[in-house]
């Protein structure tokens, strides 16, 4: 039997990948466009990258986005770990089904609804919208993704390892940190990466929950595009793609090494 690709396979691959990546590829190419006009090729140049680093508004937005991502991903991962432990370990406690349902609900809820409800909450509590409300909003949304990722790993984890640690003199909490956590670490890292990436490119939640002085990069790009597309946007988007791709590949390699170890 021939095991290579048939002509049909080749064409479908071409169309599939083309569909997915052609827009991104174009964007990357045009970020190196010398011309002022976004859609007209005027030769290779890195001038938009240079001007990008002089655009303080944009750099500000990048800085805000990073801080939001770091903090919200960390909060979501920590809370997600506890939620996963409760779901996997506590057995059939009262309200378990409700709890797991509530954890998963934001996965399928429309972002607009989430953003709006968060906004209403912050208004009701009289919280001034700004940096921290965006962080809270992102932590809320990414929490469920983190929980799902960590829960899957924890369910496969041999509970006897924790019992062995306790038997050897570890109080339960310490046993979790010395034995369970190192063994689910790849999942925790993956959950963090996922939460960070989700936070990085979120526009909807940020738009609803942000306030003055806390404009994230996607918000900045969106508002600039409305005023006319600027090749600088292409450049910053290319950098964003590079960053996310690096993160994803790093996470994949980490998982791969783990698997080879085990």
């Amino acid at each position, binding site marked *: 039997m021939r095991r290579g690709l048939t002509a049909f396979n080749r064409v479908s691959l071409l169309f599939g990948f083309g569909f997915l990546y052609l827009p991104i590829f174009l964007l990357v190419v045009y970020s190196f466009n010398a011309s002022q006009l976004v859609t007209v090729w005027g030769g290779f140049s890195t001038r938009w990258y240079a001007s990008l680093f002089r655009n303080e508004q944009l750099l500000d937005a990048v800085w805000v986005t990073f801080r939001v991502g770091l903090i919200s991903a960390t909060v979501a991962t920590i809370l997600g770990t506890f939620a996963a432990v409760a779901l996997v370990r506590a057995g059939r406690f009262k309200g378990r089904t409700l709890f797991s349902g509530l954890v998963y609900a934001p996965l399928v809820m429309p972002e607009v609804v989430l953003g709006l409800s968060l906004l209403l909450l912050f208004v009701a509590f009289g919280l001034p919208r700004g940096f921290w409300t965006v962080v809270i909003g992102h932590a809320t949304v990414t929490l469920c993704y983190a929980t799902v990722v960590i829960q899957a790993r924890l369910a496969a984890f*041999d509970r*006897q*390892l924790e*019992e*062995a*640690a*306790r*038997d*050897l*003199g*570890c*109080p*339960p909490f310490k*046993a979790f940190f*010395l*034995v369970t956590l*190192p*063994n689910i670490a790849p999942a925790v890292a993956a959950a963090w990466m996922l939460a960070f990436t989700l936070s990085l490119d979120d526009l909807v939640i940020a738009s609803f929950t942000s306030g003055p002085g806390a404009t994230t990069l996607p918000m900045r790009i969106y508002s600039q595009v409305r005023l006319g597309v600027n090749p600088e946007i292409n450049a910053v988007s290319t950098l964003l793609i590079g960053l996310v791709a690096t993160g994803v590949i790093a996470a994949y390699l980490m998982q791969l090494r783990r698997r080879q*170890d*085990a």
Partner: protein
Amino acid sequence: MTQRSRPRLNIGAVRSTFAPWADPAARPLVRFENVVKRFGGETAVAGVSLDIYEGEFFALLGPSGCGKTTLMRLLAGFEDPDEGRVTLAGEDLAGRPPHRRPVNMMFQSYALFPHLSVEKNIAFGLRQLGLAKDEVAARAAEMLALVRLDGLARRKPHQLSGGQRQRVALARAIAPRPRMLLLDEPLAALDRKLREETQFELMALQQSLGMTFLIVTHDQEEAMVTADRIAVMREGQIVQIGRPAEVYEAPNSRYVADFIGDVNLFEGKVERADGQSVRLASDEAQGGFEAVEDDVIAVGATAWLAVRPEKIQVHLDAPPPGPNRLAGKVADIGYLGDWTTYLVELPNGRTLRAARANAARFVERPVDWDDQIWLTFAPDAGVVLTQ
């Protein structure tokens, strides 16, 4: 759970004079008092009382689901009794969490920490004791040498063979020098040859450390070889406690006789019981059965005679008439090399087992399939059972 005393008979191999359970002044290290444990509607342990003494190698033996592992987990602290209590050195263990109990457990799956090296696995319990760094290292090295894993300190568990993992698990559990070591099916994952070797190693280790070992197993051979005493369990209860030879040669019930080793059971009506011997009438043997038995059993009661296959002689020529003599036909022969097992069909269709050691390489007249043969056994070969 009556402990039969048979002053006139010496039973089996008597290992040593070590018998603290026979000394009324001795205080047990561990005492289970009427312990009951339920899971939901199921009763896993149904009223167990048991004493285990310092320095003893004790085995809990029973089929899966008989409550033996639950009993061990009650001692380790992973479960709490619903009724009764468990004491260690006279102290009630109720409410004391596993990390504050001076017993360590070797898990059936070994439960080695996959992210730690062999050395760090072994040092894990030592660190929890709060020992100085160099003391931890010294004792871990000592343990590594004890289980002959010196060269493998830096390996991760997944780089070890099954036998090596088993030794790491053992070293890790004994490193903190617990009052008692609990072994949950410690040899179940090893192949037969390694298992036999390891049984003897465990015994030697227990002797040299002077530590109390409690082993849980469903493998009767494992329990017989290693333990000073065996408790046979059934449905959450202990049915007999005794030295391996006592449990084998003097089982107190048909269940124990059948669970430990192979046995032939003959049912009969008691014709005579005079405190020295018992006579049973049975359709299976024309001459009836006669057995040495010092208990007086009511005449007319139903009793069973349990005879081990190796205590039955196989004859090709008819022996003189008398008790304990049966005729049959060879239905099957199992040749094991060291032993040969004969499955003998009685005229009523029931099959018996007789075993013979192959002491000689050549036999003048070998027993063959479908041969008409006679089986006999001595009056002291069988045990009379009333339950």
